[in-house]
């Protein structure tokens, strides 16, 4: 059996580990456009911040490919999948044969064409090791940074650059920060926190035009900058599958075994859509845990196992300047809000199930809430008073507790 994986990140690693749980021998070829040993994408902001050194960037030890008997083709780009020949064509004309193929191509930054953008000299996206390296190389303590996009990536970039540059301004069209994962109150808390850390945030506004080192916003406001970072969103890399005739919506469409509509071609990670079970909608869940777990499931199935990936939900754990946020699920139904001195919590209950939550500041044991969402636990079996208080196992009925705590586990 010969496995080929396009991509070399979380989903790819998940697949390699998944394959190896089932098949210890089949050859695995990894095709990676980026020329690095598999690294943790989220660490790029920590890298520029200096919290992580280059040797700690790696997502798996340097011995990983060898231990898993993988052939890695670094710096090679797949340009075509030819399902009839079971072949992947690489840039430069080479091709690689596969029995089972995984597309784990991730996503790419989304850039809206804006007047004058082409003329901006120092512009970056913030998605890759190379992005981080070149960004890092071009800043000085006197740099004024403009970041377009107050989402996870833009703000992570802001955190990474903070204190290393003279000023940071973040602009977002939305009326609040982190609008995709927080509610108004949560956004407000984070905005204040970021501002306290010295980051300027401009909301409900966006760049109309660039003129060298000056951005003019819709509001007419002018923001001078030395460096521009565009982080308004990402788009899944679906082209390979689309062109090969596979079904694609916004992301690559797969069944619950992670197989695309093309036989023997699987897909996992940021390039795919998953069914968000907290609201029953197809979504692109561009999150690392999701990428890994989809990859693992895909790998197992490629190697002949039959396992489903069926507990996908959006979930985020992220911190800025020491203030931590954990969120999961979708925000609908009835909500319960708790505001503490340094914390904020909101639980969303729909149809007698916990479907989402937001926790800021006090995040301990949040995973118990996550499990309630993922397992679609019927709340009539749960002690609601305890549920609302804080995450705990006491809220479960005795037999469930016993099972969770391993009594009679033998």
């Amino acid at each position: 059996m010969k496995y080929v994986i396009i991509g070399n990140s979380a989903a790819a690693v998940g697949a390699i580990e998944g394959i190896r749980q089932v098949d210890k021998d089949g050859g695995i070829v990894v095709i990676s456009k980026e020329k690095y040993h598999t690294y943790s994408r989220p660490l790029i902001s920590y890298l520029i911040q200096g919290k992580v050194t280059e040797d700690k960037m790696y997502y798996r030890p340097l011995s990983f490919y060898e231990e898993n008997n993988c052939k890695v083709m670094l710096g090679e780009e797949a340009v075509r999948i030819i399902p009839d020949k079971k072949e992947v064509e690489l840039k430069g004309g080479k091709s690689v044969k596969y029995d089972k193929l995984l597309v784990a191509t991730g996503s790419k930054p989304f850039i809206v064409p804006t007047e004058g953008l082409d003329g901006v000299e120092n512009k970056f996206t913030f998605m890759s090791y190379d992005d981080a390296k070149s960004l890092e190389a071009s800043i000085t303590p006197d740099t004024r940074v403009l970041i377009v996009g107050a989402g996870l990536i833009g703000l992570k970039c802001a955190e990474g650059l903070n204190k290393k540059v003279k000023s940071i301004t973040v602009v977002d069209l939305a009326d609040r920060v982190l609008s995709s994962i927080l509610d108004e109150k949560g956004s407000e808390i984070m905005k204040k926190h970021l501002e306290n850390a010295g980051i300027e945030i401009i909301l409900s506004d966006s760049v109309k035009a660039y003129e060298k080192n000056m951005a003019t916003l819709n509001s007419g406001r002018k923001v001078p900058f030395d460096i521009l970072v565009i982080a308004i969103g990402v788009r899944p890399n679906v082209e390979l599958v689309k062109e090969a005739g596979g079904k694609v919506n916004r992301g690559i469409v797969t069944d619950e075994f992670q197989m695309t509509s093309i036989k023997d071609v699987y897909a996992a990670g940021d390039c795919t859509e998953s069914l968000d079970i907290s609201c029953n909608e197809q979504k692109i869940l561009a999150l690392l845990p999701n990428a890994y777990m989809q990859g693992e499931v895909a790998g197992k199935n490629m190697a002949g196992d039959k396992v489903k990936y069926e507990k996908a939900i959006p979930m985020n754990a992220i911190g800025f300047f020491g203030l931590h946020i954990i969120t999961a699920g979708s925000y609908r139904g009835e909500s319960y809000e708790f505001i503490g001195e340094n914390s904020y919590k909101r639980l969303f209950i729909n149809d007698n199930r916990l479907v989402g939550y937001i926790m800021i500041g006090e995040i301990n044991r949040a995973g118990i809430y996550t499990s309630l969402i993922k397992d679609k636990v019927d709340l009539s079996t749960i002690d609601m008073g305890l549920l609302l208080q804080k995450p705990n196992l006491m809220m479960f009925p005795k037999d469930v507790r016993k099972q969770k705590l391993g009594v009679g586990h033998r």
Partner: protein
Amino acid sequence: MNEEWCLGCHLCEYFCAFVNSGEKYMPKAFALNRQNVPNITVEEGDRINFAVNCRQCDEPLCKKGCITGAISVKDGVVTIDTEKCVGCFTCILSCPYGAVVPNKEGKAAKKCELCISNGGIPACVTNCPNRAIVLEEVY
């Protein structure tokens, strides 16, 4: 962990924090409000108590979700490489038992590693006065 026998005495938490503090003398480990964080949490309820620590899952969600690759399984023990951990706490988000906690500086995650680096027998097990916590291998 058997709630039938848990007395809610919290000794497991204190012994856990102690043995993982690196101090040799227990009073010193807790002197000057050092706030050592245990890897085990006692939940107290109405006449029910139990301690929760890592279940060393076969398919650890914390490991699968870890964004840096800091979590691995070594000889059946789910281990966090604190050098690699950046404290994003995706593991806290993922763990269905609430068994991963921030360390006392809040900069990295930590969890029960079965005292493998403290002599092998978990301190919570040896010091539980009522054998509510036992170490069993599960295959």
